[in-house]
């Protein structure tokens, strides 16, 4: 059982860091590009060195690509280099803010919230929401494949998109949600305040404190420099 990876950060701290990076990044991008650049670069290095490297590598290229695209559009619309950089930095801030969230296992977040006696409707909702993206991705892949096997044409055709793609997708999602709701209820889940146990307690570690401190240093440092 020891092979299961742990979340890179204490879940609630991860969310707090995400929110802080997003807000601080957006504010500084609007006011001072240099400050924002230093802050985001610092945060990215902190993440790289403190166990978030996989998420960092997954996020950075798409974030840079989107930032470059919108920056270029802004520049070409004649609003100047600084404005273009400011727009680009906002997208990079969003990308970097996502990194801690990507490094949290949904079950750790749920257990963290359960231990803090957060209402179960919220914890289960979060668990399902966090698992929804990979589920949707897998369902879309299966349906696209099934379309091929039934010899339907291109998805660009609206009629085909509606009939062969959207209908099976909606039906699958409805079926999954119905069965899942039934399954969790029969497995003892209730919205009412029954006591639940936490199989593996999620506790803050020294490393979590260090991450929070380093992010704060990045923010203060960026402001000072």
């Amino acid at each position, binding site marked *: *059982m020891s*092979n*299961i990876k742990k979340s890179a950060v204490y879940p609630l701290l991860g969310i707090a860091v995400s929110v802080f990076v997003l807000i601080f990044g957006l504010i500084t991008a609007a006011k001072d590009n240099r400050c924002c650049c230093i802050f985001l670069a610092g945060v990215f290095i902190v993440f790289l060195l403190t166990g978030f490297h996989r998420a960092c590598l997954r996020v950075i290229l798409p974030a840079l690509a989107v930032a470059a695209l919108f920056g270029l559009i802004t520049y070409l619309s004649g609003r100047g280099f600084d404005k273009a950089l400011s727009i680009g930095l906002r997208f990079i801030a969003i990308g970097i803010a996502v990194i801690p969230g990507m490094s949290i*296992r*949904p*079950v750790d977040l749920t257990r963290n919230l*359960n231990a803090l006696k957060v209402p179960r409707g919220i914890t289960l909702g979060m*668990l*399902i929401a966090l*698992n929804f993206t*990979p589920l949707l991705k*897998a369902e879309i892949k*299966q*349906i696209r*494949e*099934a379309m*091929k*096997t*039934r*010899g*339907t*044409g291109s998805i660009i055709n609206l009629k085909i998109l509606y*009939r*062969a793609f959207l*209908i*099976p997708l909606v*039906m*699958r999602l409805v*079926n*999954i949600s119905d*069965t*899942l*709701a*039934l*399954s*969790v*209820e*029969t*497995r*003892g*889940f*209730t919205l*009412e305040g*029954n*006591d*639940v*146990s*936490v*199989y*593996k*307690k999620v506790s803050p570690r020294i490393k979590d404190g260090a991450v929070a401190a380093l992010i704060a240093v990045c923010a203060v440092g960026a402001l000072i420099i």
Partner: protein
Amino acid sequence: MKTAAELKNVSFSYGEDTGKILDNADFRINYGEITLLSGDSGQGKSTVLSLICGIIPNLTPGVLDGEITVDSESTKDKPLREICRKVGVVLQNADSQIIQQTVEDEIAFGCENFNFSPESIKELIKESCEAMSLSPERQTRTLSGGQKQRLITASTLATRQKILILDEPLANLDFSSSVQLMKTLKSLAENGYAVLIIEHRTDLVADYADRICEISGGKVYEIENTKEFSQSKTGIIPDTAENMNSGETAFSIKSVSFSINKKEIIKDLSADISKGDRILLMGENGCGKTTLLRLLARLYKPTDGEIIQSILSSLKKGKTSKEWFRSVGVVYQNPDYQLFMPTVRTEIEYNAFSKEYADKMIELFGFSSLESRHPQSLSEGQKRRLSIAAVLASKPRVLLLDEPTVGQDYNGLKKMTDILNAIHKDTGNTMITVTHDKRCAPALCDKAFLIENGTIAKSGGKEFVEQYFGITEEKQ
């Protein structure tokens, strides 16, 4: 034996205007016993499950009369959560029920809800993983269909309710896992548990069941002569096809390997499949059968080696086209993905070889009275038959069938086997089937490959299949 759950004079219909699915039915399950509830599709087996565990009327409304008791207490006005503290339920469609990312967390989910201590949860995960041959650290998204079924069963076994109800728990399980599950359930029954199994694969359950009941015409009957009943539902279906092997190669599989996320699923597999062959792929859950079908259909590309096809000579290496999928029909494990037209008729007519051929499929598969129904409104068994009919309507030269018989009652199974063989005889198609059902397996093959750890461990003819499923021993 003490009664665990009972239906007394129960009548139920899903609406005011719909017919009664149960009509003054009496039924009980006892502690210390395994009860098998058998019956044809649509007779109300799952309704009985829903009534006992409180899904009806708590979540599914309907018109209900009579009394239902669980552990000697009436379930009237009791919420589902209260009933489910006493009744553990394994539902159909395991795929849609998994909520966590690892096997360990999925099993822990129910235990946490029931407020078990972390120490006992750890012990229960270990026990249920051992009972269902699962590895706690496995990622749930990488499990095969049968492994997902095992996981959902393990999750229910871990929550330790004394009354267990399982709805088609063997549907996607391989032979040895099915036997293992039945042995586990038998030992639980011997330790005082009440076990109710709703299952079409009666051949695997009958020997372990203490009582067999059949549901028919709204009533539940206890079978007196269980031996005679088992024989009527477990007979090996005779092969009605002829060997259509033309001697020409359809697929030449040369040292093929396939990996996902560095996990090797198919390893250096080589084989030749001739045109007109009927091939059966056998092996345990997760051994790579479905992956091999997908490689043949070109839905996956080999990470090493190659598959040379002689079905469509104009097709470029590794490519697919509309014409390819017209020639190579793929029937998925889950029919929901392949059904999208508004009626059964239009579904079968879509991409059909001709209108006349589509009509023939509608008649052969018994859809004449259902042709204006929406495909998604059909039962699971009917949907599966429809997906096969729709694929067959394009008259493919190769037919790839991934567990086509799941959810079929014995008559449906016999009928489907006969139809597949009749079409094979008629068209000379190459048929490659994955099934764990020993009743139809010998009738669907001329040749079989046993897949173990991603490669062909052994191959042989019908005798080999009979030997693998233990039919030879039964005959002796």
